[in-house]
């Protein structure tokens, strides 16, 4: 399977003005100043966007950069959320312990699932992630005495410090920024570059001595960790969990976000998440047919804008990253 249209090799062009860092820092500044002036509903909406952006970016780490067909990413998100929910309702452990534990549990699960999956290639890889992910879903769905089954867990008790909408907003923003910085650093590290090399040419990578499976497994675990962190944020926002968090259609939704924003651009998935979250809330309040709208958006994207919104903007302004001709030639 070729992913060469995600090629980032031309990114190393000389930069004159650090335009993008300035833009991002000022965006962050605006985001930090918003809570006092924003109505509660929009605050909630933005908080959800931050959480979803982290989830979408964590998927893109394995999908876009790792080139792994991860079809069931929501599992790690859901397991992270369930870990927090179960620890807070079944034990007397403090919140911070639950919040630390959740991403670790998700990462552990990713290690188990990934250990089986990285032995397979392409579609088979994707299908096994789907099968094992649905297995986890079925267990949570059916283990009524432990997880409350399809009722989910509601009214999860949170400590006062993290229960006001404003503090939840800042926590989400802070966690998003820190996690994105870490992921960006990983992508730019020798490990991340090796990962991209494996995606673009596995045979050659192997022949120069790269252990493909180990790298892919590490990437898989890391993305599971950050999806679990997004799960913690979800519990902070909603104070409830349900098995639908880890049904396969949730994973498909995350895939759509990545594609919508653009998988070849680091912030693409974040933009895709923002667009989809806002659209779902807006369209959802006006009509019953939100899925139809999402389907049409996806259809248009796939047929006319496969590089995503941010990918397209990046093509328009300056850096040419995606080459249509090469894309066709590669297949």
């Amino acid at each position, binding site marked *: *399977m*070729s*992913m060469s*249209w995600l090629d980032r090799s031309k990114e190393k062009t000389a930069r004159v003005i650090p335009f993008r860092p300035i833009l991002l820092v000022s965006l962050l500044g605006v985001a930090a100043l918003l809570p006092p002036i924003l109505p509660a509903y929009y605050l909630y909406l933005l908080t959800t966007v931050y959480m979803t952006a982290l989830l979408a970016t964590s998927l893109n780490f394995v*999908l876009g950069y790792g080139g792994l*067909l991860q*079809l069931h990413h929501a599992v790690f998100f859901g397991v992270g959320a369930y870990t927090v929910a179960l620890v807070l309702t079944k034990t007397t452990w403090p919140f911070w312990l639950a919040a630390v534990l959740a991403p670790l549990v998700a990462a552990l699960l990713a290690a188990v699932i990934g250990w*089986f999956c990285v*032995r*397979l290639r*392409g*579609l*088979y890889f*994707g*299908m*096994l992630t*789907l*099968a*094992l992910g*649905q*297995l986890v879903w*079925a*267990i949570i*769905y*059916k283990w*009524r005495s432990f997880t409350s089954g399809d009722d989910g867990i509601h009214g999860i008790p949170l400590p006062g410090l993290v229960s006001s909408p404003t503090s939840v907003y800042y926590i989400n923003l802070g966690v998003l920024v820190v996690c994105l910085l870490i992921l960006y650093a990983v992508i730019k590290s020798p490990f991340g570059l090796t990962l991209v090399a494996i995606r673009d040419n596995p045979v050659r990578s192997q022949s120069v001595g790269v252990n493909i499976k180990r790298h892919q497994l590490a990437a898989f675990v890391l993305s599971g960790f950050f999806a679990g962190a997004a799960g913690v944020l979800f519990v902070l926002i909603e104070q409830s969990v349900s098995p639908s968090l880890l*049904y*396969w*259609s949730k994973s*498909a939704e995350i*895939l*759509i976000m990545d*594609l919508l924003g653009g998988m070849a651009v680091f912030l693409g998935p974040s933009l895709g998440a923002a667009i989809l979250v806002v659209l779902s809330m807006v369209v959802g309040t006006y009509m*019953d*047919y939100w*899925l*139809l709208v*999402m*389907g*049409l958006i*996806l*259809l248009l*994207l*796939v*047929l006319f804008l*496969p590089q995503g919104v941010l990918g397209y903007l990046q093509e328009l302004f300056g850096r040419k990253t995606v080459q249509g001709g090469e894309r*066709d030639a590669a*297949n």
Partner: protein
Amino acid sequence: MSVSMLASQLLVGLSRGMIYFIVAAGLTLVFGVLRVINFTHGSFYMLGAFIGYSVAAGIGHGSAGFWLMLVLAPLAVAGISLLVERGFLQFVYRREHLIQVLLTYALVLIAGDLVKFFWGSQYRSLSTPPIFTGSFATGSITVPKYNVFLLLVGPLVALGLWLFLSHTRFGKICRATATDREMVDILGVNSTWIFAAVFALGGWLAGLGGALMAPVVNISLGMDANTIIYAFLIVVVGGLGNIWGALISSLIIGVGEAFGALFMPDWAVVLPYIITGVLLILRPSGLLKSVW
């Protein structure tokens, strides 16, 4: 746990496996020839059930309605799938798997809401036709008559597919296209229409599966999501594109599920995933040889 109970459960499992096979055969055929991952297949199955419902309900719930539904619903779905292939799918054959997955997923979302629009979101149900109501009882083994009917239809479909693929000119061309499309093109066959025809045949099989299931399940929105996952698991476990592999894994999963319901009813839903997981770990590229 008596032997007769096990035996009747085995038959129920086999008949369910037959339905899985009919749906999965269409999916694996499309996989094999078009090399496209078709998530819309589950929607075709759902459409088969809903259209079947409308046909049968329109005519009256008797035998005539049932047989007419079995003929008309799959044909209607085949027509719809032909439109889907010509309208959308033909543009992404040369793109990545992910793009194909997402295109067909977009169609899943659209089809789901269109069904909601036309049929509403409440449950529908059909009764089994008069000739198939009741059960056969041999000794202490009882099996619903409709399951026996399914047990006969499944092998018939398998036989028909085998005859078509191995003993007709068109079927042989399909298999050749699966192996090497370029060569088929060079030999002067218009593979574009082979693709369209195979996709329509896949849709016909999904529609048939849906119509056959209509009398025994709640016809509802969301019946596509579960089915497509099962069909995928079956196809992958069987070996991508291999129809006989799909037959074997359908029966394994159908029977596994039926016994699961008997021995640990709470956990029956987990079993297909466990079976698939174990089989894929043991045989990473499927039970039988994949055509890829």
